[in-house]
């Protein structure tokens, strides 16, 4: 590399810039290569190997692992949990974004930070807190047992833990979006005689539809893939409380790696579909530019 002092008095001769060109080109190739090596080792290969391992013993073995009754039960439970947890957090996300974005009130920034709180909690702890409340030795444990209601080691517990870990995902997409849109359009609709509900359905919802979809997409991906929190509350009862990620763990620990990777390949495909849909939504609505997760709201 040519050494040129950058002091104010030492403007280089015009020729001095020229020899650096090939060096720049070389640096450029080196940087690109280094970045690609890092990405291949830590990003691309882990993704590719899922499919490699799943199909290692042929399509028939792959298919058999997917139609196994236990696998089908796990897939059904995962879909059920997402179907309950995502709408719950969707309603919350819309309500929270409406309150935060359309009004001024004391403690608003504290509220926004609290909404993000679940991201600061380890998945395992997200499960633990519900065990402490609803477990056999938990606060409500004896009462629940007396009334024959099962929350822990049953589907309600799995739903609760999933709701907790996906709690902020819709809200954190909608809050900045609705804040940037302000409330002029809603106020115009109201002054023209629309009711509050009509204003929401005809003005607000169309404005936030891409943000809503975006939040639901991320919320769904996380809900279907959650492992730590669900593992603590599920009890691992095969065919009953095993979600897909838990089923993968059991198969893997039984040295049935091919079947584990077969089920894992479905979740890997879901991840890929999520990323593609996300990219498509970003093209429709550039204001949804991807942000890192988890993290505090801007």
């Amino acid at each position: 590399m040519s050494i040129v002092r950058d002091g104010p008095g030492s403007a280089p001769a015009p020729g001095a810039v020229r020899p650096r060109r090939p060096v720049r080109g070389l640096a450029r190739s080196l940087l690109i290569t280094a970045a690609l090596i890092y990405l291949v080792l830590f990003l691309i290969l882990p993704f590719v190997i899922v499919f490699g391992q799943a199909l290692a013993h042929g399509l028939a073995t792959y298919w058999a692992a997917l139609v196994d009754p236990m696998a089908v039960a796990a897939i059904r439970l995962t879909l059920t949990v997402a179907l309950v947890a995502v709408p719950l957090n969707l309603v919350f996300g819309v309500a929270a974004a409406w309150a935060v974005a359309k009004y001024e009130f004391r403690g608003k920034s504290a509220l926004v930070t609290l909404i993000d709180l679940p991201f600061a909690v380890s998945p395992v702890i997200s499960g633990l807190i519900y065990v402490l409340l609803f477990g056999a030795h938990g606060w409500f444990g004896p009462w629940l047992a007396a009334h024959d209601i099962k929350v822990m080691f049953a589907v309600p517990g799995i739903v609760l833990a999933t709701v907790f870990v996906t709690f902020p995902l819709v809200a954190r997409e909608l809050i900045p979006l609705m804040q940037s849109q302000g409330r002029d359009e809603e106020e115009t609709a109201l002054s023209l005689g629309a009711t509050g509900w009509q204003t929401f359905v005809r003005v607000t919802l169309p404005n936030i539809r891409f943000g809503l979809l975006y939040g639901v997409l991320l919320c769904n991906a996380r809900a279907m893939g959650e492992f730590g929190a669900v593992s603590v509350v599920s009890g691992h009862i095969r065919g009953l409380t095993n979600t897909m990620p838990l089923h993968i763990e059991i198969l893997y620990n039984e040295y049935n790696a091919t079947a584990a990777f077969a089920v894992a390949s479905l979740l890997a495909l879901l991840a890929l579909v999520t990323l593609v849909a996300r990219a498509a939504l970003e093209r429709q609505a550039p204001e949804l530019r991807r942000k890192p997760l988890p993290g505090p709201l801007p």
Partner: protein
Amino acid sequence: MAATASRIPFPARRPRRVLPGFGLTLGYTLLYLSLIVLLPLGATFLKTAELGWPQFWRVVTSPRVLASLRLSFGAAALAALVNTVAGLLVAWVLTRYEFPFRRLIDALVDLPFALPTAVAGIALTALYAPGGWIGGLLAPLGVQVAYTPLGVVVALVFIGLPFVVRTVQPVLEDLDREVEQAAATLGASSAQIVIRLVLPTVWPALLTGFALAFARGIGEYGSVIFIAGNMPMVSEIAPLLIVTKLEQYEYASATAIAVVMLLISFFVLLGINALQGWSQRRLGPGGA
């Protein structure tokens, strides 16, 4: 921001609200937040209070718990550091250079957010195990990744990969290229441009990305437990120790470890909030 014009001055005690639904939406938000998040978390702290201070202290300072906390925080810090350096590199390459599949690679950076942790866990184990695609290459060199603390770091590097890239990328995109070109025509070398121009602008974002990756790494469970080998005192992370204690019905001990982790994570979150506020004041909106 469009809302600024219509914002009601704060001292007005009873602001006139034109839009309906304030009580309903805020009430529902607070109720749902309390039921799902605040009450259960509060219950966790109360549960530790039952334990009493001497016993709490005995639990969290026992050698096995200390070893697991050291591993969780140490591996998370190391992985975040790797991701800070590599993330800056990736963000730079993605924003400054044109090469084949650049857009595809840019989209794939988010894969660790979308891929379930259990899937990442078994995939990384298969890859870095002694007989795996990468582990097989490392074995002759005497490096074993899977089933060692190094495996924990590798899993956390995967999990934390997008954070630094995604915090630094917008800052690099906004950076005025003309200033760099001016510096180059004045004779500054590439290294000088990076050190004197790029790094001072980028480092708040870099720090935010580091903190986010670190915070995520501390609590990570699914991707780690497959590759770690989970030997007590050696490769057992704190979240796994919580699960182990729970399975042995030692609820109080599990809760004590959880409270220590929660407290530290909250401080990290507060730090990130402060950092973001600071870097936004430094760089203007959209800075980080």
